[in-house]
């Protein structure tokens, strides 16, 4: 299957929710459950590759196993499987489903662009950059690969700027600022696109995601200091619980006030145990887990709506991330207990 995803590649018929949702539910029944992760936790990297190759990842593992081994094989197979799965949903989804699915998949464009920019900034070879890319998104994957073959990140931005949706980029800016702009623009566009569905669970999820991205940035800025300019660059408007004004206050509150304010939202119980920790790694990971867990809970019911598809998209992403965490953890000889804590189950 061609993994270059663009709107025009698909025959977008009317969405038949009965067909789509039942098929997606049948696909979801094959997503790994807790006991499978427990089995994977007791395996070595090569055994994990063999195990997942017996299930839904068979096609990808079989086709990639001649070229890759160990953790590289698993990473590639996971990315390819995710791309194939999302492409399959787009093909069978019809117009309405595609609008939502593309809104979610668009973030993979951002992921790929950021990976290329970081790679170019760190002067990594195109081959190495390619390993981090995921062939999903609205932009064609050949286009993404062509970006990876350019020499500098400034050249990448110059090429991207020719596309209308990325015309706001400026190659003279620092790479961190460009990343923030990409995310700010992504969320702005998505909220504009769905402004009529303000109360839909999908928009709620996006707003929650904005909150979590903002909280992560606020906590970083509180810890490492910030300027007014940095504040403006690193906060995104449109969150579920925090608007720009509240975020500004959160940045300037004392630790106690900050915690009291956060406790008024569901994020309080996640952040509180980690407030005194030296690094933000654990709290950021917990927030991500919380977001994924919430999405799975929220995207329930709605048999003749897009909800089951969104539930599956999230479940599949969680599965891929869990397998990735287990295999990377195993490759780095991390204790199973630590890997288990990082999983979203």
């Amino acid at each position: 299957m061609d993994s270059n995803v663009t709107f025009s590649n698909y025959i977008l018929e009317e969405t038949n929710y009965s067909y789509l949702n039942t098929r997606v539910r049948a696909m979801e029944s094959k997503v790994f459950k807790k006991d499978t992760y427990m089995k994977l936790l007791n395996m070595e990297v090569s055994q994990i590759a063999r195990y997942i190759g017996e299930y839904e990842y068979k096609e990808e593992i079989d086709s990639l196993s001649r070229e890759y081994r160990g953790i590289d094989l698993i990473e590639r197979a996971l990315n390819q499987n995710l791309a194939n799965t999302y492409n399959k949903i787009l093909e069978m989804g019809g117009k309405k489903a595609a609008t939502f699915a593309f809104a979610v998949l668009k973030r993979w464009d951002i992921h790929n662009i950021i990976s290329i920019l970081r790679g170019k900034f760190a002067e990594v070879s195109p081959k190495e950059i390619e390993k981090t890319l995921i062939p999903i998104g609205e932009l064609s994957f050949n286009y993404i690969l062509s970006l990876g073959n350019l020499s500098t990140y400034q050249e990448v931005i110059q090429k991207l700027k020719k596309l209308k949706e990325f015309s706001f980029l400026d190659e003279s800016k620092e790479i961190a600022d460009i990343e923030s702009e990409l995310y700010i623009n992504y969320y702005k566009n998505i909220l504009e696109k769905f402004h009529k569905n303000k109360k839909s669970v999908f928009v709620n999820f996006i707003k929650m995601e904005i909150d979590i991205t903002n909280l992560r940035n606020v906590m970083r800025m509180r810890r490492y200091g910030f300027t007014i300019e940095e504040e403006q660059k690193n906060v995104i408007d449109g969150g579920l619980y925090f608007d720009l004004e509240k975020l500004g206050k959160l940045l300037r509150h004392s630790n106690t006030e900050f915690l009291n304010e956060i406790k008024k939202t569901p994020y309080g119980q996640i952040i509180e145990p980690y407030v005194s920790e030296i690094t933000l790694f654990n709290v950021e990971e917990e927030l991500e887990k919380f977001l994924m867990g919430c999405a799975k809970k929220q995207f329930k019911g709605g048999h003749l709506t897009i909800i089951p598809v969104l539930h599956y998209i999230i479940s599949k992403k969680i599965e891929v991330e869990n397998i990735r965490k287990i295999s990377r953890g195993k490759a780095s000889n991390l204790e199973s207990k630590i890997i288990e804590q990082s999983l979203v189950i």
Partner: protein
Amino acid sequence: MAELAVIVVVLSAAISVAVTGFAAAWAEKHIGSAAVGAMTEKEELFGKGLVLTVIPETIVIFGLTVALVLLFVVLPQVL
């Protein structure tokens, strides 16, 4: 007056068959698509899918029964 009653009874019989026919078709459309969707991913669901797809046929049978009662029990009394 008797003519009007006949028209009402006959129309009722027609409506009961027509509406239940449409209802069964609508239900089968959804159940059929859902069954095909499930079968595409899990072939072993063929049997269950087939049974579920024909269940809405019972709605037409209800409609037909009502129509037959109207035509063969109610109508002779009106006439």
